[in-house]
């Protein structure tokens, strides 16, 4: 008799740190019981987290692969499992399996490019991994611009890291915006797509767009208006997932499985998919 080893069987993860980002987003630090990173990953890849008996779901690994000590997940409370995850205390064990999906082409197409990161709300989660990867290998990339927006000041994920680290880096410009005026806010007010148009970037950049579908749609249109081609713009797709390995048949758009062929797609590749997402 032997034991079945299968990619559907997770390993144990321990939550060693919990950061409250916004009223409905927390960032969890996860390691194995012996204090190591559960597995290596590339920027843009995801993992399946679960609380046995509650459920299992896919989350972007928001920490950079260059962090060799632990993984982080920024999780928005929106349903059964995520509610449970939000109720966890430090020391709680969960299960984890992965990594899943393709990744951003950080070591190929992105090399030597000026980068424009655009995120809305929790959409910063997959981007943070790439941003910190680019910051770590700073010489490999050109100028970096980050446009990030949320509903309100309180809804900006990773605000502390952005203010304490990103804005202080040479060659990185961070452009924050919130949807509506707030007394304490001195920055820009307005929706991300309009802000991107206002900022009017050089069109020689590679853009990466993550956020709610509606934001992606209007921002992409805005980028095209100021002269970007779809082949310069990358995004991530999100569909319901169960297996993460292209077998349960749940996350396909036409013949592509988002869990395996995605979640990262170039916008001209998205155009080739049938309109069902």
């Amino acid at each position, binding site marked *: *008799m*032997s*034991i*079945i*080893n*299968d*990619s*559907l*069987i*997770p*390993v*144990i993860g321990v939550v060693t740190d919990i950061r409250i980002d916004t009223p409905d987003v927390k960032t969890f630090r996860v390691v194995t019981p012996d204090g190591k990173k559960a597995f290596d990953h590339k920027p843009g890849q995801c993992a399946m987290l679960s609380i*046995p*008996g*509650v*459920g*299992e779901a896919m989350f972007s690994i928001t920490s950079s692969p260059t962090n060799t000590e632990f993984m982080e997940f920024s999780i928005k409370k*929106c*349903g059964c499992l995520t509610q449970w995850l939000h109720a966890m*205390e430090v*020391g*709680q*064990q*969960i*299960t984890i399996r992965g990594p899943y999906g393709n990744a951003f082409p950080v070591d190929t197409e992105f090399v030597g490019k000026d980068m424009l990161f655009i995120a809305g709300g929790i959409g910063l989660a997959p981007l943070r991994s790439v941003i910190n990867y680019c910051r770590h290998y700073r010489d490999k990339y050109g100028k970096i611009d980050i446009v990030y927006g949320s509903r309100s000041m309180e809804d900006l994920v990773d605000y502390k890291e952005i203010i304490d680290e990103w804005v202080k880096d040479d060659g990185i410009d961070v452009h924050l915006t919130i949807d509506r005026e707030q007394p304490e806010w001195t920055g820009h007010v307005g929706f991300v797509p309009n802000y991107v148009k206002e900022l009017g970037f050089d069109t020689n950049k590679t853009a990466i767009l993550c956020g*709610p*579908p509606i934001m992606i749609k209007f921002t992409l249109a805005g980028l095209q208006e100021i002269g970007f081609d779809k082949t310069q713009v990358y995004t991530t797709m*999100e*569909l*319901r997932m*169960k*297996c993460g*390995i*292209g*077998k*349960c*048949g*749940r*996350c*396909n*758009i*036409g*013949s592509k499985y988002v869990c395996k062929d995605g979640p990262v797609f170039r916008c001209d590749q998205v155009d080739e998919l*049938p*309109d*069902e*997402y």
Partner: protein
Amino acid sequence: MRKISLDKLDQLFAEISSKSALYIPVDTAAGAKFEKYDGTKKMSDALNTVRSAKDFFFPQTENLVDFKVEGKTIEIKETVKEDEDFVVFGVRACDVKSFEILDRVFLADPVDNFYKNRRDHGIIVSMACTRPAETCFCQTFGIDATAPAGDIECHKTTDAVYLEAKTDKGAKLLKSLNALTEDADASAVEAQKAQTKEVFKKLPLAGLDASAFGDGKTNEFFNAPEWKTLSESCLGCGTCTFVCPTCQCYDIKDFNTGHEVKRFRCWDSCMYSDFTRMAHGNPRLTQVERFRQRFMHKLVYYPTNNEGIFGCVGCGRCMAKCPINMNIVKVMKKLGGNK
């Protein structure tokens, strides 16, 4: 090629089942189904089992792993492999072909080791067809029901069963049965094959052509207005997906027994409304999109990902079982016929 006379078939079953679990199709009140041979069961004469043979490798529910949750800690209890060989006797050509279609999903990297383990331990003894039904259209997909392959290929005539090994696994099993079987020449089998082929030519679906579909045809069919009319009365019951030998969608669900959590993998259906539902909406909002998904997957997406091989084997089960009499043949005729 070896043969055994029909009156000695029980001895053959007894011999096989003395060494490993043996499953044969038997007649039940609910139609033919595969059951474990117990020394008394008789092989069904029905053309095919109501449910497909995919259960042997991809069962309707299976326990993936168990968890013991105590306070903040979790203990993972891995599943133990079933490593006994088993023999499935009397699998028709369409179902044999369906294993190849499932293999391309479950054995693709990363391999599904639950499935692989069963494939490694399963021995398929196929059975050639002689009396195909009006709902059969395996020939549309290039399947020869008179040469069903498997590990051992069988042909049943009026007085004997002829057996021919097709793989090493099959050869080993067949050799172990030498005391019961005798050498045979292929003439009786060849004659029967030729006769059956004539029957196939006259089947109502003999002319059904799939060549309008296949690799790279997504854009051609995705927005066809016919999906709306075709799916109009679909109940979303999922019957077609459950009886289908090539449908592979699954769900992963936990069950708390009170002292542990059991994680199961169970069949799911793209015909169900909550299959793709998400917090910010559902990409397949109505039955039109779900219905389109099932047939596009078989006829276009699967071939696109698998060198043109179709994801349907023409077994006709969905034709026999759909409560509103909808099926893949109607879809093919309506969509392919208009091109």
